[in-house]
């Protein structure tokens, strides 16, 4: 087997790639998590709104509360990339 020789540029490039993968995973996985969390809240919110139009503002708010998860993911991704 031939020895794998890595130059400095290759190492740097692969580090950059790893960072990009990490950032992608951070946003993607937290996005999925937010989606799962919002799924139940969202369906309950639609039901509640159908019963009583007045709660629309409140349930819209409750629905976006799990958004924090993906925001944290986005923050981590941005910090990784820049």
């Amino acid at each position, binding site marked *: 087997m031939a020895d794998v020789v890595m130059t400095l540029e290759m190492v740097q490039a692969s580090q950059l790639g790893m960072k990009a993968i990490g950032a992608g995973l951070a946003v993607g996985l937290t996005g999925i998590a937010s989606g799962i969390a919002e799924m139940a809240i969202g369906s309950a919110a639609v039901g509640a709104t159908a019963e009583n139009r007045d709660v629309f*503002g*409140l349930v*819209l*708010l409750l629905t*976006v*509360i799990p*958004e*924090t998860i993906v*925001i*944290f993911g*986005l*923050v981590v991704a*941005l*910090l990784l*990339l*820049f």
Partner: protein
Amino acid sequence: MLRPEGMRRLLIAVPKGEIDTVIRELYRHNIYHIEDFVPESESPDELSIGHPLPGASDAASALIKVRAIENACGIDPDSVEIKEKIPASKVRERIRTDLPAIQKEVEGLVATRSKLEAQKKEHEQRAKELEPFAALPLDLELYRGYIRFTVFTGHIRHDVAIDVPHEKYFSDRVDGNMIAVVVPNEHREEVERTLLDSGFQAIPVPEEAGAPADRLKSHIDEAREATTGIAGVNQRLAEIRDRHTDLLVACDELLTADVERAEAPLRFATTEETFITEGWVPEDRADGIRAALEKATNGRIYIGELAIDDDAKVPVEYENPSFASPTQVLMDIYARPRYSELDPTLMVAIVYPIFFGLILGDVGYGAILLALSFGLRKFLKGDEGRMLLSVLTYSSISSIIFGVLYSEFFGAALPWPALIFNRHLNIGGAAGGHPPQITELMILAIWIGILHITLGRILGMVNARKLHHGRHAAKAAIANAGWIGTMWGILIMIWSLYAIPLMPDLTGLPVVAMGFNVAAVVGAVLLVAGILGIAQENALELVEIPTIISHVLSYARLVAVGLSSVAIAMVVNFIAIGMLIQPQIEAITPLGVILIIFGVLVLFVGHALNTALGLLGGGLHSLRLHYVEFFTKFYKGGGKKYNPFGMKSKFTEE
């Protein structure tokens, strides 16, 4: 400002003879919030609920008629433009003279319309039944009246061969094909089986005579005639609407006022000779209404003032400077403040647009939203909608200001470099000059979070003294101070261990023990003192300590959401201009023109989508930071809405 409007609790007692005058006077002033009387027991010597004034049921039934006419003509009083106010006496006159005629006409038209609609439905149904038979060359009477023969009519998948004596007609001109078979009675069962094998579905023969095609045509014609008739009726209803809208909304308003006045005694307590009512009036207008009532009744009235014992019972009316009052709609979505607590509307009115601008700092998007907030005023007539649009106006102005500071116009740079922090990402290799200052922006957002939450806790200390009494108030105030201490303790300890840009660097201070320096010790002391402060009120609250970190970090969304919107804008620009339009413009070809048109389309759709996302992201996330991170620190809410007895007349005048 920062407090709801002061209220005074009045007790009014009047002899039964003066009740009409008093109700009229209260209604005219439109400031008295009636506390509904609830009888405590059924016994006859207690106070009981009053009876409606005479004329209540007449006014109510007239109101129902007016509402029915409005309904039939499609008039919505809320969205009618006010042209001129009609004097009440003239409206009353016309209720007697004109209204019965209008009512009769409208009722007649509505009856005609429903009759025509029934006819239309019937003819359409008949036509539908006849349609398959029109495909066969037989008159309808030929299908029935046999003794020795059986007739099968219906849909079938395909034509079938029948091996007994029969007469058969098949057509594939209609949906699902059509077959009619006449067989002697003795072969009925086997023919039926053959047919069923090919998916036969029987349909009954319509009870009519003549050629099906002619009958079909006549039903269709009649249905069409009925449709024209309905259109004619609608036309006439529209004419009535155009002619009488002003009168109808005026009648509606006048009669609603009549009914509300006549039914007011149902909310009062009565003895044999008097009416007693309890209610609330704003502090600065209490003396005015007292004087007015005494004058109207020539002093035959008792007005007393009661002490306010329970702040949950006091109706709450906001008192804010006019620029902050639209923000009240955002407060009402969460909860109206309690009477004795701080009203944070003013703070929200200032901070909300700033947050919105920080997130969506872009001159282009800001301008679109500004135009939208003015354009939509034509369509949104309700008070709440108008208030939301005013909030949007402030927010989009703030967005434009931040756009100038960030130097952003639809994601592209303006002719000057960013004046505060640079948000231009390196997408498509377009961004030159400074790299984006993401870390600095994040730390700025964290600073905003720290200060906003500290402000929230300080307000919590103020509120604790207002909402609680005695020792509990002190405990609650100390707990809030404890939360501030814990947060700043953690911060100072972090600063003493790590040097963070844009934050105080405390790492260089002299070391005291075990590698910890002075600042770390101060931080630890603050932290422990803070935790003790929280625990002395309620030890269970300690499980909430991690929320200090998550709530502060949550403010990072001010940057993160904004950056994602910048990224989308830049990607749209890069795809549309950099990849599609620019290369084609250099050497124009027929295919290139199509690509340029496509590029322009991508540009428009992309930015329209991003405007919507920006509105949603900027609006909801700023709101959420207030509701979840800010209000939870001090705000209780749950005040009753101040709903004075009376109305602002729009269409009539006394």
